[in-house]
């Protein structure tokens, strides 16, 4: 079988398998899978509003997926995307609320503030890893909690004990009147262009620049990188910061696009953690992340329609969605292991 064929077949077969097993789950629990999947389909593609909302949902997944994937390529496991996203969200909302500036300054300022906040938040685990060899997984997990509670405190402080920063100024908003008009007033915003641009940026950094060359080399073989005169620690820190900046931008999408504010949160958004699955589904490549984010965003959003339209309880819906994603991930995981096994064999 040619490589190309495998590349197309694996995800297609895994989606079909996932749908089949999901159908069995619905059947066994006494619900109609045809009705269920019709509701899912309509939830994703049913009308222009659904399509708009689906794309809106995909936007932050693209960025959180890129964040995880980027760090992975340097051999780092950034579980802190969630926290970096939260600080990015807050930073963007703060700039959006607190300043009065013309749009051409205000909007970029708010976006950049989010990227910088996320980057700085990731700088801490990067530094600890590079200087003291503290494992980034532990630090990033802890940093998630710190981010959650710190942003909550800051939001309360900003709003005199309230739960919400208040709506950002229009000059900092990613809202799109045009998108609203063609998608029946969905919350689809211009952020999708930023997310797609970042896909290109990641590809460009990794495939064209000396920085990307170094990051990949360090990810594969630290000793050889050091031998070749690369600064391994600098690359670890840089990789974390860039990853964190992507995560911060994901927060900006929520602050400046979807919600137009930041509010006190009782728990994590999950977008950051789902980014791990998105990156894995996409084999840590920029194009793969587009695929993973699309699948994730579409299923997550479309599933909301299943309880309403097909009377399937939320719990069963969650199981079905998880099963589909599980099978897709398996397809990749299986192939990933097959390839790895092959590589091992090829190595002499």
């Amino acid at each position, binding site marked *: 079988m040619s490589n190309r064929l495998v590349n197309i077949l694996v995800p297609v077969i895994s989606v079909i398998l996932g749908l089949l097993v999901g159908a069995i789950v619905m059947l066994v629990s006494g619900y109609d899978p045809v009705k269920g999947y019709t509701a899912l389909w309509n939830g994703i593609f049913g009308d222009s509003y659904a399509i708009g909302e689906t794309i809106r949902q995909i936007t932050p997944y693209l960025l959180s997926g890129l964040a995880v994937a980027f760090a992975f390529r340097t051999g780092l496991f950034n579980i802190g995307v969630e926290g970096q996203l939260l600080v990015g969200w807050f930073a963007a909302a703060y700039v959006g609320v607190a300043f009065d500036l013309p749009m051409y300054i205000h909007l970029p300022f708010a976006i950049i503030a989010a990227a910088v906040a996320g980057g700085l938040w990731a700088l801490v685990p990067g530094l600890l890893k590079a200087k003291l060899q503290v494992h980034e997984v532990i630090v990033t997990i802890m940093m998630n909690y710190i981010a959650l509670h710190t942003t909550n405190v800051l939001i309360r402080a900003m709003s005199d004990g309230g739960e919400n920063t208040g709506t950002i100024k229009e000059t900092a908003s990613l809202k799109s009147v045009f998108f609203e008009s063609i998608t029946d007033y969905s919350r689809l915003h211009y952020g999708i262009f930023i997310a797609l641009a970042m896909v290109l940026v990641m590809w460009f950094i990794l495939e*064209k*620049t*000396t*920085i990307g*060359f*170094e990051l*990949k*080399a360090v990810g*594969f*073989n630290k*000793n*050889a*990188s*050091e*031998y*070749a*005169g*690369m*600064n391994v620690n600098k690359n670890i820190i840089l990789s974390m910061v860039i990853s964190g900046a992507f995560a911060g931008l994901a927060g900006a999408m929520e602050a400046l696009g979807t919600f137009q504010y930041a509010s006190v949160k009782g728990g994590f958004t999950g977008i950051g953690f789902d980014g791990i699955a998105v990156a894995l589904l996409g084999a840590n490549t920029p194009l793969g992340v587009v695929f993973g984010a699309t699948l994730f965003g579409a299923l997550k959003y479309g599933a909301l329609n299943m309880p309403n339209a097909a009377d399937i309880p939320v719990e069963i819906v969650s199981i079905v969605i998880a099963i589909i994603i599980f099978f897709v991930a398996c397809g990749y995981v299986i192939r990933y292991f097959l390839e790895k096994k092959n*590589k091992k*064999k*090829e*190595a*002499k």
Partner: protein
Amino acid sequence: MDYVIEMLGIRKEFGSFVANDNITLQLKKGEIHALLGENGAGKSTLMNVLFGLYQPEAGEIKVNGKSVKITDPNVANDLGIGMVHQHFMLVEKFTVTENIILGNELTKSGIINIKDAAKKIQSLSEMYGLEVDPYAKIEDISVGMQQRVEILKTLYRGAEILIFDEPTASLTPQEIHELIQIMKRLIQEGKSIILITHKLQEIMDVSDRVTVIRKGEGIGTVITKETNPNELASLMVGRQVDFTTVKDEANPTEESLVVNNLVVTDYRGIEKVKGLNLTVRKGEIVGIAGIDGNGQSELIESITGLRKVKSGSIKINGQDVTNKKPRQITEAGVGHIPQDRHKHGLVMDFSIGHNIALQTYYAPPISKNGIIDYGKVSELAQKIIKDYDVRTQGEETLARSLSGGNQQKAIIGREVIRNPELLIAALPTRGLDVGAIEFIHQRLIEQRDKGKAVLLLSFELDEVMNVSDRIAVIYDGQIVDTLQPKDTTEQELGLLMAGQHKTGKDVKQGEQQHVE
């Protein structure tokens, strides 16, 4: 005639590339059968087929006359086939015993019975003269002992047929001598051995028959007693080979590398280089001769910036580079062929092209303003592949899927083509075939003739003798003597390397003669 192993008409393809084509190898019981071929000829591939790591596209394998399908290494194990890979597969943090029983643990109601296992290992090791310390950790024992552990691992699993893939490439001459004794012992006990080596003399010394392959094709099998190294070499290459290294007198000029009173410690903080002095001038090749473990690796790593210097100084081309970063040292005009090609030399998951850019990716002409011109990279890669005869399907191939010798050639090409003022070559010809060794020696001499300085580290005395203009003998972290190859013999070198001084001349004097 009963053969224990018959590989008949084996064909193995990688994509459109044919690595093995119609190769036949028949192993008799109780013989040492050598497998000979150039780098990339397909030896490792053929053995991986026999060990069940690869599935052949065509051909038949018979074990004791019965046709078998070896679908994975477990099947090979069950058939009594064991393999000692060129790169050992041991868990550093585990003890010798733990490594040997790994995956094959003796258990008593679910609990590993280390004592019994150690006993069994002890008796095996006595039986074959494989001396190991069952309770030592792998990271603490020598390469030679690690290899004995690998051999014990196969015997512990009941191997009757042992495959050795270039076992002598990473061993010191003393260890090679021991290994040969071990192999003879194994044969006496009724085992059969397939041995891959590039050293023709070893083949002449230990093997009964030799199967030669060339560019993936089986050339034939000859009886060792009826052949000689020259015939073997020409069978393998397909033409007459000339062994002699031709070179003119050296014309050393100013000093390029000056190492002064250098002290370096190893990772445990133990001093390995103890006040070492060494000078290499432009236009000469200085060879370092010594027994492994006398501070050679630490010396080279400190010169190239991979290891911190405790005290003393290193000057390169007039610049003080003591404790400078590898990049600064490279830019002071140093090329470095590292001792461990997998650890330092290559990023195995990068393509050959990427690996060839590893030292130069960050500056013009390869990159401008932080953007790499991959067109230039592939141009350079193609040039090196052609000039250094790197056998590969192209510069896009992953370094991982090149044969060991061809990986080495790519590294040498990358370092030499930069034309460095000082070339540091650590074990440059390890794992290369005779033709390639000759070629690399010529390149080193060429650099010298261009007025560059070359520092050569080698464990092969004949390499040191043939290629160097001066030989610096290292013992216990110091250069104990420097001599001209024409004024010395391998015997004398051997004594110096073992820490014995020449009679009537003390070490200090020897060193001083050359400081003049």
